[in-house]
């Protein structure tokens, strides 16, 4: 029996329902929560229509869900939380995805910044921005990235998830290991990594892939979402094959690993407790999990088919093997 049992609540936000924001045409990717007094703010990343060459840029924004009924949308951001970077900067063509955390009076956003390359389509590095208005808008901490490339993390540093456990900041993210030519086109292979920090600014990298690959050596892993419950750390993440992954058979699924020390992780995807539906918006893939707790209930936000092109949904945790959770 799965460790977690999730009840799907359906899709809660559909970007196509927002018609007066040209930068928010489709996609609501990589949901990340910030619990407010009256709402749960879910940050996501979206795209305007592609340019004449078929190229997308991505922005990050938020939607406020009613804290008493998370299926009810109260508000949608009037503008992206961050403009794109200037010419030549790491985030000139996209700010996606984003993960937020409170730090005193300010809110910090760790995000993937996208640039375009010639031999491969893109590169990504992790940036930092802060908000002084409760998470409505953000300003960059600098024009460059907070986490850039290193000898053993050579490209595609993305998917940051910021967490704090026992006074230490943890950044879970992905790092590219190779560009693989698939049907004549370079596709990145990436694995889950971790860094730690006393202040969220100066980081020490763990320099190891945290989670073993299961479906194939070149399995791509993303969205490492870590939470503490029942005396151990749990990670939900998503994974897919390296080729032909845009359909159901080899597309994203949600995996699971657990750890007692955040360093050694044991993978067992049968424990994730969520899979594709027989039909509907999440019938081909489930991806980009994010777990949050509000008013005593644990929720899972995630993406469905086409990696969130038509929005994100929620599931509610019904049971686990043992009692309630408490942060260390």
């Amino acid at each position: 029996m799965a460790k977690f049992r999730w009840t799907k609540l359906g899709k809660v936000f559909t970007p196509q329902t927002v018609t007066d924001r040209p930068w928010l045409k489709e996609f609501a990717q990589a949901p990340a929560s910030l619990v407010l007094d009256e709402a749960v703010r879910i940050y996501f990343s979206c795209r305007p229509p592609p340019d004449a060459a078929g190229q997308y840029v991505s922005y990050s924004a938020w939607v406020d869900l009613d804290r008493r009924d998370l299926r009810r949308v109260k508000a949608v951001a009037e503008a992206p939380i961050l403009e794109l970077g200037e010419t030549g900067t790491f985030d000139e063509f996209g700010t996606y995805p984003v993960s937020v955390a409170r730090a005193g009076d300010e809110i910090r956003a760790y995000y993937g910044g996208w640039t375009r390359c010639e031999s491969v389509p893109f590169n990504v590095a992790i940036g930092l921005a802060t908000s002084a208005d409760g998470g409505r808008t953000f300003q960059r901490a600098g024009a460059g990235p907070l986490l850039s490339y290193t000898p053993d993390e050579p490209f595609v540093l993305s998917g940051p998830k910021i967490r704090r456990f026992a006074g230490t900041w943890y950044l879970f993210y992905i790092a590219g290991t190779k560009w693989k030519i698939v049907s004549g086109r370079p596709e990145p292979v990436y694995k889950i990594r971790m860094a730690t920090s006393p202040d969220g600014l100066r980081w020490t990298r763990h320099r190891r892939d945290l989670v073993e690959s299961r479906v194939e050596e070149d399995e791509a892993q993303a969205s490492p979402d870590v939470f503490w419950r029942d005396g151990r750390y749990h990670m939900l993440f998503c994974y897919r094959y390296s080729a032909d992954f845009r359909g159901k058979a080899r597309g994203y699924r949600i995996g699971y690993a657990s750890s007692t020390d955040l360093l050694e992780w044991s993978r067992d995807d049968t424990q994730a407790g969520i899979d594709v539906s027989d039909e509907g918006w999440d019938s081909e893939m489930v991806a980009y999990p994010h777990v949050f707790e509000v008013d005593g209930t644990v929720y899972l936000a995630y993406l469905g088919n086409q990696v969130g092109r038509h929005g994100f949904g929620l599931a509610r945790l019904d049971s686990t093997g043992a009692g309630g959770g408490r942060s260390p």
Partner: protein
Amino acid sequence: MRWKKLGRIFDPTQFALPNGCTHFAQSPQALVFDDRVRIYFSTRSLEAATGKYLSQVAWADFDKGLGRVLRVSSRAALELGGLGCFDEHGIFPLSPVRVDDAVYAYTTGWSRRVSVSVETAIGLAISRDGGERFERVGTGPVLAPSLREPYLVGDGFVRRFGGRFHMWYIFGTRWKRPVSGGEPERTYKIGHAVSDDGVAWEKEEGRQIVPDRLGPDESQALPTVLRIGDRWHMFFCYRQSFDFRSNRERAYRIGHASSGDLEIWERADDDPRLEVEDRGWDADMMCYPNAFECEGRVYLLYNGNQFGRYGFGAAVLE
């Protein structure tokens, strides 16, 4: 102090270079041996698929007076990086330094971008056989962009003073289109980082250590540092950020600064000054300096016109 020019000492068109390269011997970098001086330089091959250049590192061994070429490398000192890596489209320069029994090579890797022409970062490759073959410490860079150094980190020059590794390098401050239109051009300044092992570096994070002479549009490149007497001296090249390729009034010149503490640098381009000539191989441009000591004399290697298309020359300090 005064530079005495020795003229051009290496013409790439006169040698068979690796990878079929026929022109360019850029950013010469010396490594002194008991019986010779090896000078690494970047030459260029053409990439068939794009028709664009790839910078490749070769070397030439000279006698210790720099008057005679003894031997030229038959293959690249380091192959270019793999698909999507920071050094996929060029290594320029490769800057060697002896560290105990090894030779560390700090490389500037080039990779092409779409909205701007290029991005760079600094890699490290290590040779255990005296500078013949180098092996990367990893496929990614050791010095890359950061919050206040957003792009174009390159030109790493490393020396160990007092048990500490120091790196002087450049970082980009701006990509800007010229008023007259055209592609964005870059501006960069000289920065400084320190390290205990030569691999993990701590930057000063955006501090420009050498003052501008031409104002904010001055681009500074290729810092090289050595001790002469009781002070440290830095040579570098500088130019205007726009219209610098064919206008000799705005092209690269050799700059100089000195320091008593490796913290504060006083700029003094005229002492010693590398004179501009009316005509000849280095009359339009002088760039990419590398200073070193050999047999008690201080030499400066540098490139001339067209960024070193026709080779490099040398000067000796008097």
